[in-house]
C-alpha cells in the first residue's frame, strides 16, 4: 500500500492504495464520491469521466498513484457555490438531457471540457466531442440540445415537434 495525496474538488485528500487501484476506485470507494460511475472495463463508456489537472480523463484509465499531487474535479464539484445547478447542469434539466442519469455525470464533465475550449460548438462538434461517452437512454438528441443551450445558442431548430 502506498500513500497518495491529491486535491479533489478543492479539498486536499489522501489515502493508501494498492498499485493496481484505479483512480475511479479510489474516488468511489475511498472518498465515497459516488457520482463518478463505472460503466465498462475497457475505457469505452465515459461514465467515469472527470477532470485531472484541467483535462478530461476517464478515471478508469488511470491508477490512483498516477494522480498523486494532481488537481481532480468530479461531478460533485460542479455545482455553483450555493449548491445550485451550474449552467450546463441546468441546461441538461431544462432540455431533458438525462433519463436514468447513469451516464450523466460523465456527460456533464465532457460538456464542460468542450465549452472550455469551444464556447460556441456546432451540433456536429458536440456529437464528435462526445465520442467517448455512451448514453443508452436519450438517443443523445437532448444531450446535444442541452449543450448547445448551455453555450447560449438557439436550439429552436433542433426542437422536436
Amino acid at each position, binding site marked *: 500500500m502506498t500513500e497518495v495525496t491529491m486535491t479533489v474538488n478543492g479539498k486536499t485528500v489522501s489515502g493508501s492504495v*494498492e498499485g*493496481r487501484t484505479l483512480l475511479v476506485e479510489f474516488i*468511489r470507494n475511498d472518498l*465515497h*464520491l*459516488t*457520482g*463518478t*460511475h*463505472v*460503466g*465498462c*472495463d*475497457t475505457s*469505452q*463508456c465515459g*461514465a467515469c469521466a472527470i477532470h485531472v489537472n484541467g483535462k478530461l480523463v476517464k478515471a478508469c484509465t488511470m491508477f490512483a498513484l498516477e494522480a498523486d499531487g494532481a488537481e481532480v474535479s*468530479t*461531478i*460533485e464539484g*460542479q*455545482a455553483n457555490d450555493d449548491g445550485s*445547478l451550474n449552467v450546463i*447542469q441546468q441546461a*441538461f*434539466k*431544462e432540455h*431533458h438531457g*438525462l*433519463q*436514468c*442519469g*447513469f*451516464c*450523466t*455525470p460523465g456527460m*456533464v464533465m465532457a460538456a464542460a471540457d468542450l465549452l472550455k475550449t469551444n464556447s460556441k460548438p456546432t*451540433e*456536429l462538434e*458536440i*456529437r*464528435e466531442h*462526445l*465520442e467517448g*461517452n*455512451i*448514453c*443508452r*437512454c*436519450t*438517443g*443523445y*438528441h*437532448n*444531450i*446535444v*440540445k442541452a449543450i448547445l443551450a448551455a453555450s447560449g445558442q438557439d436550439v429552436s431548430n*433542433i426542437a*422536436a*415537434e
Partner: protein
Amino acid sequence: MPKDSGIGAAIKRREDARFLLGSGRYSDDITLLNQTHAIFVRSEVANGEINSIDTSEAEAMPGVLAVFTGEDFVDVGGNPAGWLINSRNGDPMKEPKRPVLAHGKVRHVGDAYAAVIAETEQQARDAAEKINADIKELPAVIDMASALSGKNFVHDEIGTNQCYDWGWIEDNREATDKAIKNAHHVTTLELVNNRLVPNAMEPRCSIADYNPANDDYTLYTTSQNPHLTRLLISAFVLGIPENKLTVVSPDVGGGFGSKIYHYGEEALVLAAAKRIKRPVRWTATRSESFMSDAHGRDHVTKIELALDKDNNFLAFRTETMANVGAYLSNFSTVTPTILHGTLMAGNYAVPNVYVNVKTVFTNTAPVDAYRGAGRPEATYSLERVIDKAATELGVDPIKLRRQNFIKPDQFPYVTAAGLNYDVGDYDAIMDRLEHHADLKGFAQRRKKSEAAGKLRGLGINSYIEACGIAPSNLIGTLGARVGLYDAATIRVNATGNISVMVGAHSHGQGHETAFPQIVADMLGVDPDNVEIVHGDTSKIPFGMGTYGSRSLAVCGSAIVRGVEKIISKGKKIAAHMMETTDDKVDFEEGVFSVKGTNKTVSFGDVALKAYIPHDFPIEDIEPGLEETAFYDPQNFTYPAGAYACEVEVDPDTGQVTIESFAAADDFGNIINPMIVEGQVHGGLAQGIGQALLEGCTYNEDGQLISASYMDYTMPRAADLPSFIVDHTVQTPSTDNPLGVKGCGEAGAIGSPPTVVNAVVDALRSANHNVTHIDMPLTPERVWAAMNN
C-alpha cells in the same frame, strides 16, 4: 389547477437534480458496514461437463470467507419460467432447471459455476483465480437449425433442443395456407433479427444484508420489478418467506428489459450473507454483463405476404426459429410467441395470419425481452416484406400500406392474429409523417447526394404494438403464471401533502415527475406536494414493475382509481364538516362544495380532519385518508406510428449515414410530452443501433466474439441525427381511465425496418438488384450486397 403543471404539461423532471449533482443512489453506491465481496467464476467454454471443482486453494487465500459451488444449491429450487407455452400438438414446453450456480454442466460462456466471498473485492478476485475446475469441453450447440436437427443436446435430460413448436392461431393455419396458394401474388422474404445485448449503462449489482436477530434479509438490487424478484426468490428459489425478505431497487441506471428478471447472483449473495452473517455485495463488470445479462431478439424468419390482383393483403404466414439460449429466463417463452405472433397482422385489415415459432435451446446466454420484446421482430418481418412486395409490384410503399390500413371506422377491430385493437387512425399518422418527411423534396435531395457521389434512400414504415399486457384472466388462459395488474397506495398525510406508493419502477422513465401530474390534476394540488415512492417492497403495494410500456397505462390507472377512492372518502368527510350528505358534495380544483350553495371546504382541511377526528362520526367514517387500488386493465393498449428515414450510402465503402429521421406516433393522451419525446428518442437510437451497428456474435465454438465495447458497437452521438418526433395524432385508448397507450418501446419497434428499407432503396436507386440485407447493415455487408 395551473395548466402548466397537470396532465399534458412538459414540466421538468424533479429527479434530475440529484443525478446532475452526482448524488443519485444506485445500488453500487451503497456501502454497508462490515460488507464483503463476491466474485463469480464463470465458464470459459460454451458446453462442458464439470468433472470436479477443487476449491481448497482458493479457500486458503487471504481474506476468503466462503466459497460456493453448484453443489451448495442442489437442494434449492431453480429460477422458473414465468409463462407456459404449449406446442401445436398440445405438449407443454420443455423446462430444464436453471440452478443458482451451474451444476454438472456449464452451458454457455459466462455460466457461473462457483463464487468466492472475501473481505475485499481484490482478495475475492485473486482467490477466484485459484479455483481449480476440471471441465471437459463438449461440442457446442450454436446454430439454431443444426440444434433442431442434431443429437447434441444443451440439456441431455430433455432429449431435444426444441423448447416448443408453437402455432398461432392453429385454427387459421389451413385458411392461411389456402389464401397463399390461391393468391395473385406472393412475396417471400427470409431474414434474421439480429441478437442484441441490452447494455443498460449501469451494470447489474446485488447486495445482500442478513439480520440474524430477526432472521430477515434485505436485498439491494438493480431490478425493474422488486416485488417480482422477491416473489421468485421466495416461492421458487431459496424459499425465504416473503415477509422476511425486503427487495430494494434504488436508482437504477436503465434496464430495457435486462433487469426484469431474477438472476442467480441475487440468490447467491443472499445465501452467502446468511452463511457468513455479514453483508455480501457483487457488481458486474461490463464483460460479465455481456456474458450473463439476458440478450434480446435472435430470430430467423421466413415470411410470406399474399396479395390479390388489386394489391389487397390476403395473408401473412411466418415460420420463425427463436433462440432462447441455454436456460429459460423468466419471460423468454412469451417473448417470441404471444408478444410476437399476436402482432403479425400489423396495422392491416388482412383476413389471414398464421405464425409458427420453434424456440431453440443453444449454448449461449439466455435470451429474453429487450425493449419492444417480440413486437420489433413482428414489425421488422411485416414491414420488410411489405416493402419488398411494393418493389415487386411497382407500387408506392406508402400507398400500398395506406390501402391496407384498418380504417378508423372499423374499430374496435379484431385482427386475424387475435387481438382486439380498440382505436386508431393510421392514415392520420401517415399524414403527419408525410408532412415532416417532405417527400416532395426527396428527388431533389437524392440528386444532390448523387452529385456528391452518394446514394440516397428513403425508407417508410408503419407499426403497431401492444402495451400494458393484460388482462390477467386472459393472459392466464394463454399460459401466464403471473397476473399483470399494478397497484398504488395514495396516502394523504395530515398536513395535506401526499405520498404515492407505486408498483411501477422508474429507471429513467421519469415517474417521480409524471405520476404526480396525474394526482395533482385530479386533486387540484401542486404536483410538488406529491411524492412518489417506488422500488422498495417494504413500502410499496404488490405491483409488477416496469417493462412493456406498462407503467402509465397500468400503474397510472391504479393511481387514478386510488385517487378516486380518496375523493369519494373526502366527500364523506366534507359532507360531515358542512352538515350535509355526501351525494350533495362536489369536488373540483381542490375544493369540496355543497351543490347549489356557496359552502366550501378545502382539500387540506378535509385531510386534517381525517387525522384529527375529534367530532367525527367514527361509526360511519374511519379515520385517516389512505387508499390502495389494484388495477387490472381490460385489454392491451395499441400505440401506433409511422416513421421515415433518409440515408446516404457511400458506394465505395458501404458506409451508411442517417441523414434524417422522422417519427409520427399515436400514444393516446399524453401526461408529459417532454418525457414522451425523450422516450421516443431513446427507442429510435436503439432501433437504429440494431439496424446499423449492433450484433451480438458467437462463433461456432460458442465463444462470445462481441464481449466488450471494443467489439460490440454501441450507437454514439456522432452515429445519430437529431430526430423529428410528432405525437399530435392522439386517439385515446378506450380501455383505461387515462386514455394513454405507452411510449417506451415505440422507437425501438418502428425504426429498424425503416432504416433497412431506406438502405435497400438507396442501393436500388443505383440499379443494384438488392432485395434485402441482414442487420446490422455494416459497411462490409452493404458493400458486399452492392458487389454481390
